[in-house]
């Protein structure tokens, strides 16, 4: 299947061809594709960067159990080839055969859930995915699910109410009735990898790890993406033409999860929303970080491998991974190696990964029962915001209450994620007492020279960084 992708839309398989005569390039977003069609203009562009959710659509995907799983995603950051083999559902598809509103639509109408209406189609789609998850969400879970949909009119309360009313059932609706047929349609789409070359761009979506590694060797300049929630901004905001993309989102090997008594191994291609479920019980600080990680629509496509691979100085995952003593498995055709999370980043958006390598999994050692790990994120807004300062701390006390081991990792304080080595050294062997912690707070200052930028002043960063240590103490001194 060269230069062509296929997906299900409006109940049938749609093929999109790329090439010099095509209207589309492989980095055409699903949003722009839809808005070019005559009957899918319900989807809106609000920001073109995944921060408002007005463009939310639902992607249905075959599960191993031959069911369709529905995920709300931002169509503004989804490249068209990422739909290959999937079902695309838009707000226009929700009405029933006799024109009746879907339960989530009806609930929004009843609750006065729309005012200007511009964000509404996106909200409908987010709630539709929630409806289909049949998860009987709490108010807080609903608010969390909706955190990726900005509304400037309603103040959200009616949206929460509508969601609570509509999403408490078993997810049955017209889509459930049609599911077997859609499964057949999805199965009819050939599942081999795709390789698109279109004008100045080539876009590969290998279907196996081996194929991917071969491509990496061949194309050292290629940009590697999975969810592409970071890279897509170069297209949607900077209007760059990305010449070579390798898209790993179809590689099953990257989605494997293995667990034993010593560690949890998470495939680099496991989506963040899935990771949240996996780590919820055994890695609470990790889970806490993921709860503040972007918003639902992004978590539904973004992957752990992608987040650490971009090596953003304010990336949420890396500090926690370092605190947990995680390591990354890197594979190439030449072999496999393990790099500790703490040694992975080498500078501003620079990592240990060679261009022929792929991060295939993340190994999270299980902390001992005594180990205390916490994550903190200081951001202007609690959700869907980038950290001004973040921190992940790990503490092991010996039987005498002295610091046996301590790891203090900060994000947002330097051009990359960085440990406060002096402070760690000072605290080691000392009693975990407030007076030492207060003394150590001053040392945090010495380890960093933060900058002032749009997210906060250097002074604010310094104070917050110091305070986080005291906060950690206040939460762990009992």
């Amino acid at each position, binding site marked *: 299947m060269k230069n062509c992708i296929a997906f299900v839309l409006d109940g049938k398989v749609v093929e999109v061809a790329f090439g010099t005569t095509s209207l589309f390039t492989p980095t055409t977003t699903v949003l722009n594709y839809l808005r070019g069609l005559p009957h899918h203009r319900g989807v809106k562009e609000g920001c073109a960067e995944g921060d408002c959710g007005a463009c939310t659509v639902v992607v249905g995907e075959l599960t191993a159990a031959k069911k369709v799983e529905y995920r709300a995603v931002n169509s503004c950051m989804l490249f068209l080839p990422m739909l290959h083999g999937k079902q695309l559902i838009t707000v226009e598809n929700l009405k029933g055969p006799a024109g009746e509103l879907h339960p989530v639509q009806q609930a929004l109408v009843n609750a*006065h859930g729309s005012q*200007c209406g511009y964000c509404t*189609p996106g909200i409908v789609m987010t709630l539709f995915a929630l409806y289909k998850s049949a998860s009987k969400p709490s108010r807080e879970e609903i608010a969390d699910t909706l955190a990726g949909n900005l509304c400037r009119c309603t103040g959200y309360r009616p949206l929460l109410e509508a969601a609570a009313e509509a999403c408490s059932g078993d997810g049955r609706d017209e889509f459930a009735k049609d599911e077997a047929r859609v499964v057949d349609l999805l199965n009819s789409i050939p599942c081999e990898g795709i390789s698109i070359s279109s004008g100045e761009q080539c876009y590969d979506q290998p279907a196996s790890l081996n194929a991917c590694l071969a491509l990496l060797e061949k194309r050292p300049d290629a940009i590697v993406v999975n969810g592409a929630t970071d890279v897509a901004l170069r297209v949607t905001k900077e209007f760059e033409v990305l010449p070579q993309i390798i898209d790993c989102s179809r590689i099953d090997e990257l989605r494997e999860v293995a667990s034993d008594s010593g560690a949890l191994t998470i495939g680099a291609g496991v989506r963040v929303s899935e990771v949240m479920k996996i780590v919820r019980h055994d890695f609470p600080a990790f889970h806490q970080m993921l709860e503040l990680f972007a918003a639902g629509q992004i978590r539904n496509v973004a992957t752990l491998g992608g987040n650490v691979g971009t090596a953003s100085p304010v990336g949420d995952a890396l500090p926690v991974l370092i605190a947990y003593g995680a390591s990354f498995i890197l594979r190439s055709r030449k072999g496999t190696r393990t790099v500790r999370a703490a040694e992975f980043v080498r500078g501003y958006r620079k990592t240990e990964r060679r261009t022929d390598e792929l991060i295939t999994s993340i190994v999270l050692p299980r902390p001992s029962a005594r180990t205390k790990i916490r994550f903190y994120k200081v951001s202007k807004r*609690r959700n869907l915001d980038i950290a001004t300062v973040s921190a992940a701390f790990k503490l092991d006390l010996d039987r005498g209450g002295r610091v046996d081991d301590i790891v203090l990792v900060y994000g947002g304080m330097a051009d990359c994620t960085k440990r406060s080595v002096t402070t760690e050294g000072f605290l080691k062997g000392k009693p975990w007492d407030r007076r030492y912690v207060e003394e150590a707070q001053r040392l945090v200052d010495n380890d960093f020279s933060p900058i002032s930028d*749009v997210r906060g002043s250097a002074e604010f960063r310094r104070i917050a960084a110091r*305070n986080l240590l005291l906060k950690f103490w206040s939460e762990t001194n009992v």
Partner: protein
Amino acid sequence: MHQQIPHESAALHVTGEALYIDDLPSSPSLLIGRVVYSPYAHARIVSYDLTKAREAPGVVAVLSAKDIPGHNQMGPVVKDEPCLAAEGVTFIGQAVFLIAARTDAQCRAAEKLIDVKYVPLEAILTLEEAIAANNLLGPPRRMQRGDVEVALGSAPHVLKGELRTGAAEHWYLETQAALCVPGEGPEMTVYSSSQNPSETQKLVAEVLGVKKKDVVVEVRRIGGGFGGKETQGNHVACWSALLCRATGCPVKIRLFRDEDMIMTGKRHRFLTRYEVGFDDQGKLLGVKFELNSDAGAATDLSFAIMERAMFHCDNAYYVPAIDVTARVWRTNLPSNTAFRGFGGPQAMAAMETVIDRVARYLHKDAAEIRQANFYGLEQDNVTHYGQVVENNRLHTIFDQLMKSSEYAARRKAVQEFNAANEFWKKGLALTPVKFGISFTTSHLNQAGALVNIYSDGTVLVNHGGTEMGQGLHTKIQQIAATELGISIDRVRVNATNTSKVPNTSPTAASTGTDMNGMAVKHAVETLKDRIAECVAALFNERDPSAVHTAKGDCCFESDVIFDSRHPERRIGFAEAIPQVIVRRVSLSATGFYRTPGIGWDKTKGVGTPFRYYAFGMAVSEVLVDTLTGAMTLLRTDILHDAGDSINPGIDTGQIEGGYIQGLGWCTTEEIKWDSAGNLMTHSPDTYKIPTAKDIPIDFRVTLLEQATNPNAIYGSKTVAEPPFMLGLSTWMAIKDAISAVANHTVEPEYALPATNEVILLSIEKLRNMMKVNASEPVHA
């Protein structure tokens, strides 16, 4: 009437069928327009060459100021805003050139081929710089009552200080957009996302050099306005119109989010200095305000906004001696504009700061000080501009809300919590809003309507207001249906169209329903009179007995018209209409309304600028993490006066939405420019409006009962802007929590918005001050 029916477009919203400008069906000849804007805050344009851009693939037109056939102006009040910059630029984001091409990508490619040379000049980017350079936009204004100097001189206590309130971005979800379609000769139809179609029509006609009769502006719905499309929706319309005229093709411009944020104006930043004199009980004796606003590069509505700020610096409080001086300053930033509250929030933030400081100084609960200073019912009820505060609901709302919010018990609980917690502090605050309803530019208080009844008994209502989510069309539909005694589905409210209702005022100043509702009512009354005459004649003809039906006997109810004295004489509404047509009677009528009883002397600053006041109060409780500055909004109780609400569902939505918008302005929404005048917060990545996770965990909104408003349609009261200012309750609660760090003994540093940074830095100062104080005895 008074029913909770859904928004007239609700079903269209949830199905995605509601059309916004960018969704309108396009013709194959449609061109995409792009605005090329200034990269300098202040510069002279030395030269430019558009040749290469004009030759670029897909490009149909590239325009500069020289290509404007009409008047190069789009200032709504003062003609100080060129449509395209000619000799120089005065802010980053100012339109300089326009491009029309087949696609947006072609426009962007062509933009890179424009060769333009600027000579940068010194720019004024802050209020401080403007004040230092005496860069006034116009003469200062003053309002005063009593002798403030005497009051301050004799007051037992005097405090003074200053407050900065920040700019804010409207963040309507639909960015500015317009589609212009050429007609015959000079004709043009403009589909616009404008809160002020008549002004859009005027400015489009002026830049094109045609007459208003040639330009039709239509607004079906706006994807959020909040004031941001009261004047600045005109700009994209004018730019699209110029490209449309130059190419002869339909042209659409929809600003990209970042460009919208960079190019358009914000809420005015204010720097307010105040001085207050008060007695031991906290009674205000005299207050002096010096209001300074940042207008940006042009006038826009800055003077009207400052005027409203002057009218609202008292908020809900009687101040015997008051002196307000107001200065509007020009800077090299996009021209700031209307935003929900229109200067009111900035002024009220200053007054609430005054009250809060008095309370802290006297070690009293701030709610007590507020109550002590509310306008009285019988006395102390005249504002500083001489208007009597009639139908004053402040005391009723205060009493009810203090009780329903369990203020006293929670105050005690907050104190106990704070005593028991070193790193976490709670804060609690009640703030009121008293907001004057009417345009302070008095002639704008007029509205028109055109109602058509068709032969099948359905009704199409046209009026001058625009639907931007506030539910205006729904309320209008309710009004028309109620008046005609017909079911609501017989009535449709048409897209606002300048060819149907001319010379309209903007949908602003919270007056949409009050004014357009009355205009529609008047039109419907005319039609009812005509229908009744026909129906009465019909009854009398059909049954020429001794019984006589006069037109005044005819009742319109439940889709039936009947004689109230002889109810057996009846005819279905839909059945009656053809009878009217047969009798050759017009079923189309206009309606008009001018707000009565208002008027004031602008030069003296005295009179009755407002038809009535809106009232509301909120109690908010917050939890502050004193180590990070993070704030959690635990609970908000709002009691708001919506009169006899026409639609409680819609009004509750306006209150909640307004409050949350105010919350954003007060907390996370921070606009930052760099030292060259570039907007740093130009996308939602860095500009943070509230999400579903930021609303109060416990959110209780109630409409005041038994609150008939004698001064608006059906006893209702507008909602619209006033609840925005209830966001200040959260802002004050945060300050209360910060203040708890020093056990309320020190006045904390504070600003608006209270970002986590502002909170943490303020706490850090208090902590350091406490440390110094604690260590003083050692040094002594």
